[in-house]
């Protein structure tokens, strides 16, 4: 399998798997129990919490474990429902884990404004500024887009909202291990992560919360996770998430450079035999390993199927329940017409990819594109 779909999910790091297997096997205690088996489990969780905190320059008490990026986002948004007339500003190319939630919460009294993006996917800052009202309680702008890789100017956004009593959330699910994620530097109030995007296990996410007073509980029950999320912890997955975070930031610079090199090489070679391609998103403010490309005159679902036949995994548009390809709202938002939209593929490289693999991808694309 030649896997170039790391923005969908990543293969688990073998060291992470090893740790998880060991924890799952040996540490069966309930972290809330007072006996030694319970304490042992508790220690594992707190160690992981420290590892996550270290990875994003936070304090351990600011780290909350969730079931994934979607839950982390939901947690922040649901938290505002109890505030009367609360208003949220976000943008049109957010993940459905933001947009669908806001759509759902609207009849429950949570107002929202969606800011447009330019042709590269960058949020219009003037628009954002002009949409702030005295009821605006939260601005939620993703760190990097999952489909086109565009990195948003979070620090500039922060300057705009500073001193206005507005909380700032960012969905950074695509970022850890690829670009620097430093909550102090970004100065955000909330930040969402998902372990399976950085070679950790699926089903475990992280929510960074700067001040606990700014958020309410999502899952009511036991007193786990500071009472914000009741329920016995997924000890092995939490351990895995902690180690995965630690490993993914350890070699951030080299990793990032490797991903960038793979992407640069891929684009350069692709253009050399198929110059008609269109690159969607920002070339500079972009995730190192991700590129979204339109192939004019080709259907993305056909390209996907033909690549799948030779064991190459890439992705297109928005995946949904029945595996069919639909036009991507993100690509529409940056101005692609429906035809070009349905001619687009996302290639997302990972740290385990090699140059040789990218060459195979190029060779197969050449055949499929009939050149």
């Amino acid at each position: 399998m030649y896997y170039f779909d790391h923005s969908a999910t990543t293969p688990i790091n073998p060291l992470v798997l090893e740790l998880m297997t060991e924890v799952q096997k040996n540490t069966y205690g309930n972290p809330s129990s007072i006996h030694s088996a319970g304490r042992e489990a508790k220690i594992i969780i707190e160690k992981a919490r420290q590892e996550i905190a270290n990875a994003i320059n936070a304090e351990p008490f600011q780290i909350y474990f969730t079931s994934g990026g979607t839950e982390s986002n939901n947690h922040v948004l649901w938290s505002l429902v109890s505030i009367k007339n609360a208003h949220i500003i976000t943008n049109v190319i957010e993940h459905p884990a933001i947009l669908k939630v806001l759509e759902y919460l609207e009849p429950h009294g949570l107002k929202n404004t969606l800011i447009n993006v330019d042709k590269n996917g960058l949020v219009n800052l003037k628009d954002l500024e002009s949409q702030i009202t005295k009821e605006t309680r939260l601005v939620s702008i993703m760190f990097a887009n999952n489909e086109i890789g565009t990195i948003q100017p979070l620090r500039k956004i922060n300057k705009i909202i500073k001193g206005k009593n507005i909380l700032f959330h960012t969905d950074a699910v695509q970022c850890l291990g690829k670009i620097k994620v430093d909550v102090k530097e970004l100065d955000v109030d909330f930040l969402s992560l998902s372990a399976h995007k950085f070679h950790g296990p699926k089903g475990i996410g992280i929510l960074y919360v700067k001040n606990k007073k700014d958020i309410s509980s999502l899952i009511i029950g036991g007193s786990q996770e500071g009472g914000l999320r009741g329920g016995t912890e997924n000890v092995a997955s939490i351990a895995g998430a902690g180690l995965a975070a630690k490993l993914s930031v350890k070699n951030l610079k080299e990793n990032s450079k490797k991903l960038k090199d793979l992407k640069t090489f891929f684009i350069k070679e692709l253009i050399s035999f198929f110059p008609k391609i269109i690159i969607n998103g920002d070339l500079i403010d972009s995730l190192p390993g991700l590129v979204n490309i339109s192939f004019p005159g080709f259907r993305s679902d056909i390209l996907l199927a033909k690549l799948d036949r030779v064991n190459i995994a890439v992705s297109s548009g928005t995946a949904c329940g029945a595996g069919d390809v639909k036009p991507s709202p993100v690509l529409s938002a940056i101005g692609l017409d429906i035809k070009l939209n349905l001619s687009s593929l996302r290639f997302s490289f990972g740290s385990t990819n090699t140059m040789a693999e990218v060459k195979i991808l190029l060779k197969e694309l050449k055949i499929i594109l009939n050149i």
Partner: protein
Amino acid sequence: MSRIVVGLSGGVDSAVSASLLLEQGYDVEAIFMKNWEDDSEYCTVEQDYKDALQVCDILKIPLRSVNFAKEYWDKVFQHFLEEYKLGRTPNPDILCNSEIKFKEFLQYSIELGAKKIATGHYVRTKNINGETQLLKGLDPNKDQSYFLHTLNQNQLSQSLFPIGTLDKSEVRIHAEKKGFTNFNKKDSVGICFIGERNFKDFLKKYIPAKPGFIIDELSNVIGQHDGLMYHTIGQRKGLRIGGGNGQSTDAWYVLDKDIENNQLIVGQGIKNTRLYKKNLNASSIHWINNRKPEVDQLSAKIRYRAADSLCTITALSKTKITIHFEKPQFAIAKGQSVVFYNNEVCLGGAIITSSY
């Protein structure tokens, strides 16, 4: 061996079709078509997809999906609505075959490198003198040639129907032996995108209903209807006419629709002569081999479940024909298709415009 793309619906018929092709040595790939976007509880697409996935897992063949919802909406559903607005009874499944399954899906599969496509329809094909004939499926209860009569030579010659020689029960046995979880899945009935939901509620979402009067043959007003589009000729249920209104205790039937006056004309008893017509006019004529047939024994069906009935054809013009049946036909509905046969060979058909 050449590559065949099977349209897998999640049902047992297409699943067994894929399995049979594999046994015949073909290189088989499966595609799940999504032709309708619907989040309602009636939409079975997710379960259907899971069933298809399970089948492909057993058969070890790849399953991919394609979305033709826009094409279906533009080419099939719009026409369906237009026809209902005009008070006719269209057959969208026939249009879906000629416009989506055997056009969009066929083109798509060829583009994917398929030699031919295959579906789980109960029909057969036969090559004679360079022509491809469409034959009825061997299971008399399941024969689906009625729905495929608008296909042309190009479409038929690129299509395989692996279960056309089987009975439904044989298909289910094959599926059970293979371990397909859908082996006893209920047959889909009615119009695919409406599914199990109430037809009236569904239609109401798209076409404003115009209530009007129900009159008997002597123009006495005996009830009210919610909209002519909810009714079709020969319909007996759902008229809500009280028993005391009639001359007898016989059931009421829809005899005709007066579109101009928005009135539904009803009469009593299944033997009412206005329910039976021997002649009909039809347009949108299609002959599978491109020629008007010259056969001794021409018969036709006026709806899917009707029996074949002997008839003759006179051409009114290039685009219009009149069909004369030997015996009167029950409840000929405008908008339905009349499909012609010479014994087991399906010759083509046309759309009914009027009857007398």
